[in-house]
């Protein structure tokens, strides 16, 4: 935005040369300069929108259009291969809401979401706090937390599939080695959620930590100095200064991980080969349920209805998240930041 408005200003300056030292203007000149002034004003008003429009045009095409089209599909009978059928109103929504696997998938999605997002944000905060200190080989440490993020989810699923094998997996072999009962990672509902959440966490924690770190580095160092003079320890500084000072970033990460967390697909999808989330769909998430309806049952109408329901759920949670994090803690810091913008 800021870059846009400076650009506009300079364009406006060039476009409106009303020099007082020029020749005495006749009436045509006056008219022309009035026209130019108008043009210049128009330029100032319209140009910013022209400059930002490519994004919004793209967004309309790849964001709004699919959204609208999905809504259109969701009110029709629509087969994957047979295509558009009759208009069916909200029938697809009714069928989805009556399907017990929808509610099952909703439960699984929230369970995996909570098991992944909460530890993820907390660990990322702590990790960023550690990375923000005077470490040796800082670059190396900072790079390595991002490493899991670069690995493709399919590869992560492959590795964790072996780690969390029910019978011959690494974790269970260790558990049995120290005399504990093996955990049935693919069978028991909660265990499977933990296994999947740990895949998600492994991948995203470092990424979030780097975002937190970037925000932490913008916190003025003299605040810490005064806190230290007042006798605040490291932990106290972290809790009372660092976290409140990076609140907008915390909110941002909270919302993005809500959006991502409610759409978890690749990890549970690849957790077994059938892709339905286990024999009892104990780890079938909403996106997997959507995929099952669309590609296994081959009913795009119902799949689109699920897509819209998921969209509404995510919007609701993103808003709730925003409200909750605005309310919690000091509003002062946030207010000042907002005013500065």
């Amino acid at each position, binding site marked *: 935005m800021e870059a846009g408005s400076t650009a506009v200003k300079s364009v406006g300056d060039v476009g409106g040369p009303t020099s007082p030292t020029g020749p005495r203007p006749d009436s045509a000149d006056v008219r022309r300069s009035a026209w130019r002034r108008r043009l210049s004003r128009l330029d100032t008003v319209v140009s910013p929108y022209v400059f930002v429009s490519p994004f919004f045009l793209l967004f309309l*095409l790849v964001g709004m259009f699919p959204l609208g089209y999905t809504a259109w599909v969701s009110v029709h009978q629509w087969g994957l291969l047979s295509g558009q059928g009759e208009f069916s109103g909200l029938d697809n929504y009714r069928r989805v809401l009556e399907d017990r696997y929808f509610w099952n998938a909703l439960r699984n999605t929230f369970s995996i979401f909570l098991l992944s997002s909460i530890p993820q944000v907390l660990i990322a905060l702590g990790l960023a706090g550690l990375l923000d200190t005077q470490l040796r080989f800082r670059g190396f440490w900072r790079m390595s937390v991002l490493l899991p993020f670069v690995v493709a989810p399919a590869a992560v699923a492959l590795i964790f599939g072996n780690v969390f*094998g029910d*019978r*011959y997996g690494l974790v269970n072999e260790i558990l049995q080695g120290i005399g504990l009962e093996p955990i049935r990672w693919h069978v028991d509902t909660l265990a499977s959620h933990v296994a999947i959440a740990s895949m998600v966490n492994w991948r995203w924690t470092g990424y979030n930590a780097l975002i937190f770190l970037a925000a932490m580095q913008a916190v003025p160092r003299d605040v810490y100095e005064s806190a230290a003079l007042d006798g605040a320890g490291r932990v106290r500084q972290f809790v009372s200064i660092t976290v409140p000072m990076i609140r907008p970033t915390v909110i941002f990460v909270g919302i993005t991980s809500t959006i991502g967390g409610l759409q978890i697909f690749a990890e549970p999808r690849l957790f077994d*080969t*059938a892709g*339905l989330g286990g024999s009892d769909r104990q780890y079938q998430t909403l996106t997997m349920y959507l995929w099952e309806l669309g590609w296994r049952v081959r009913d795009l109408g119902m799949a689109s209805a699920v*897509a819209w329901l998921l969209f509404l759920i995510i919007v609701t949670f993103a808003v709730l998240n925003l409200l909750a994090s605005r309310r919690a803690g000091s509003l002062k810091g946030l207010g000042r930041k907002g005013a500065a913008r």
Partner: protein
Amino acid sequence: MAQTSFRRRARLASSAILALTLATTVAACGGSDDDGTTADGKIKLTVATFNEFGYEELIDEYNAMQDDVVVEQKKAGTANEHQDNLYTKLAAGSGLSDIEAIEVDWWSALMEQSDAFVDLSDPDVEGRWLDWKTEAATTPDGALIGYGTDIGPEGICYRSDLFEKAGLPTDRDKVASLFSDWDAYFDAGRQFVEKVPGTAWYDSSGGTAQAMINQVEYSFEDEDNTVIAADNPEVKEIFETVTSNVDDGLSTGLTQWSEDWTASFQNDGFATMACPGWMLGVIEGNADGVEGWDIANVFPGGGGNWGGSYLTVPAQGEHTEEAKALAKWLTAPEQQIKAFEAKGTFPSQVDALSDPTLTGETNAFFNEAPTGEILAERAEAVPFIAHKGPKFADINTAYQQAIQRVDEGKETPDQAWDSFLADVERLG
């Protein structure tokens, strides 16, 4: 940069409208951007297969023969995965390989979309395949949609070293006489697990049930493709038989193709499995380094056919003529015999069945068993080919899951059956 990404996005949007909510999968489904030619102007053909088709060396051979065509194989790990990809790109209208393999379980669902595939009928290939193989690939108006590759006549593969431990005969002829019907096979299993604790009798309940279902002519759907799964006594009986074996420890409790299942080949996880020709290559790969595998010329309850595939040429391809020529070459008897030698995929071509190369084939990994002769006899023992309608694969998945729930102890057999019925109802 913006321009190319714009175009790519536009295409993505139009080909996969629902991509928004599936943002995580879009990257994987984006498909190839190439226009079907290589840098030096040759036509590039892709062949999409799953599991093991035994085409690696054949494709090299074809490439060496051709000056203007380069063939590349895309292998999917499982038939399911391959199928999902096929459906997605069929719906999108682009992105399919020039040749797509299709497994019989899904065949009739795709026959309903026969317009999406090129008619491959050709005087040169008339009479090339077993009649039923060709019939199943011919539409009511006479178009031939697929060229048959293999069929899946089943024997029983077993670990002779573990049999010895249990005091069972190890010689493949004597083993064959043990397994006249399913009850005899399960009884031998009970004997086995008593002697060799820690090792199951068969690889998975699902695989065993699948083998049994394939022996039922009309299992889940009747002649008119009306769904009869819920009321068919044979379906219920197989369910009860297989699930009642769970308490006896006959099953590993694993699902086929899972990581644990693959690992169980290396860990003496089980002693026998239903074994169609194409499974030989899978076993050899998973049990690499394990000695003692053999195959008996028998299948409980007579003969059985499990799987087998076709090669199709999707109409959306850019080089359908060249693809057809390649499919024709790959499915010729001579080539299918080579695929059999490589991975055990048993030919569906009439001329191949009597070919001395085939009947004389032995398999070193399976203790020098005469696999050619055994599978040819197993093919003859198949009394009929089970009917598989458009819903077969979907109902079968639900059936397998129900059995798996019992295997895992999540449900009792009765509960699992009830939830299977609910699933069938849901599939409509």
